[in-house]
């Protein structure tokens, strides 16, 4: 067994990227985004925010024996990529990320000043 990139299982790695499936939940404190990146080790995950766009990227690395030929591939690429536009009230400097069993979880908090306040309407 050798540790290698997924080029035999996914020959067209450079052509197309996979779109990771996500769950997005918004709460008062911020957003929780879970993204599926099976086969991507922690060190191959990139989470980046630039110009208010959050980009998730990951590259699959599988344990493949030598001289293996791909005979069937439903995962037809070794790269995952997906981007999301963040809204202004989110604090992208405080994103927390964790990964377990091929699932990446991001918590994107809302900036302090953007957290909801109940506004009393004065009637008089």
């Amino acid at each position, binding site marked *: 067994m050798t540790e290698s990139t997924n080029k035999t299982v996914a020959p067209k790695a450079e052509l197309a990227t996979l779109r990771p499936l996500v769950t997005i*939940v918004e709460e008062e404190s911020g957003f929780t985004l879970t993204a599926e990146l*099976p086969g991507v080790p922690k060190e191959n995950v990139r989470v980046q925010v630039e110009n208010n766009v959050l980009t998730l990227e990951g590259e699959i690395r599988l344990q493949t024996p030598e001289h293996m030929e791909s005979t069937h591939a439903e995962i037809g690429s070794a790269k995952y990529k997906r981007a999301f536009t963040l809204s202004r009230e989110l604090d992208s400097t405080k994103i927390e990320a964790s990964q377990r069993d091929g699932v990446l979880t991001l918590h994107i908090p809302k900036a302090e000043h953007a957290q909801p306040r109940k506004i009393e309407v004065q009637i008089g």
Partner: protein
Amino acid sequence: MYNNLFNFSDDLFSELEQLQRQLVGRNIVSNIRPVARGSFPAINLGSTPSSVEVYAFVPGVDAKSLDIQIDKNLLTLQGERNLVLPKEDNKLTVYAQERFSGKFKRVITLPDDVDVSKVTASYKEGVLHISIQRRAEAQPKRIEIQ
């Protein structure tokens, strides 16, 4: 309808590739156990002269809950992944739920020369890797000339 109109893809190439695969697929012979596109889990298969390698992409699953069985040359993978989503209320909104939740089962036809007594399975980073050795007598042999 609405979804189709407004669900713009951020990855045109993979969408095109999928479309192309769908179109080409009309002319080829289907498997008796056809698999819908996007079935869970996705499976890749590989082959070496001495083994058959199965990779099932099952992220976020407890490996102990996976049930793998091989009967003759059929490999069956079963399991369950229940995603518990928080309840929506006026303080919580679920915007996207694309991830599979529930019971799943996949059946794969293996080549005839596999040795079902020589199987190893491991789970790492959301990928279940099953390696099945081929029978020794089925492997190519180099014949030495005396």
